[in-house]
């Protein structure tokens, strides 16, 4: 048993919905935004024997576990991707969902 499921609130929710969703969020700097980190890594790769490297862009990758139903959560998730997880002025985000799997029965 994972420690967080001992929390009565969390376990009540997960029993109710009976499913757990894994979401991956990819946040990348927009093309127009200078990415000095990416440029530094690109230059290092070229110096280390790969002159073929044209460009490197560095973003963020987040893994999020969620208890709840897919359909109802998705609009809220997109809202948080826009408001918190990315800044639309400088970044684009991509939300990838894994198929919701029924929670494994504990042995």
């Amino acid at each position: 048993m994972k420690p967080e499921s001992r929390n009565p609130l969390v376990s009540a929710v997960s029993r109710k919905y009976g499913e757990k969703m894994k979401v991956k969020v990819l946040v990348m700097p927009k093309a127009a935004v200078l990415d000095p980190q990416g440029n530094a890594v690109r230059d290092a790769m070229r110096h280390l024997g790969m002159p073929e490297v044209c460009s490197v862009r560095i973003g963020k990758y987040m893994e999020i576990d969620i208890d709840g139903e897919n359909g109802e959560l998705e609009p809220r998730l997109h809202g948080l991707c826009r408001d918190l997880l990315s800044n639309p002025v400088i970044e684009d985000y991509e939300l990838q969902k894994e198929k919701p799997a029924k929670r494994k029965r504990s042995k």
Partner: protein
Amino acid sequence: MKFAVIQFPGSNCDQDCVAAINGIAGLKAEYIWHKETSLDNFDAIVLPGGFAYGDYLRCGAIARFSPIMRAVTSDARAGKLVLGTCNGFQILCEAGLLPGALVRNRSLRFVCDMVTTRVEVDDFPFTQGCPKGTLLRMPVAHGEGCFFADAETLRNLNDNRQVILRYADSRGRIVPESNPNGSIENIAGICNRERNVFGLMPHPDRASDARLGSADGAKIFRSMMQTISANSAISERTKQVA
């Protein structure tokens, strides 16, 4: 006249701001914890520098959701003067009170240096007594101070005279060598369309005493005081007329 200095977890220039403001006769600064919800008793709001919420995710990204930010936003919309320095500027951009964003310095280095900025407009509420072309020397200390805005936003900023400060050399020329972080068009400070919210990367709070190398920062706090007393004089007169 009372100024609120907001303390977020991770703010570290709150004391500098309070000291700088209290150093000006007629001004009194108070710390306001970020979990407070009202700023009704204050004439102006200052968001200090630091690393609110450890700058996790992005600078200012989490701080903008602090409870006090609702009051900051509604008071800003009502016309109260709001000043954001360094991390405070980043928070104002994240909160959408100022356009654009602040990203990693082009050099990838944290810059900690004295810079010269040039005032770009006349008659701005935060730079009264500093006509266009005035040079202000203030320190910068940041890793993410490179101002970015897309082409349309930048055009609007210039057309509406919202660019208030640009990094300049000692003779007041806007040159690439005087740009400490790679900001577009050497932008160091901007305001909103209504001109009552001002964000800048340099620290006026750390340049408010000649013994610290410059007292130019105090001009910004003094100008805020002038603007507020002028505004209240106007509203008094309107009340009397009515």
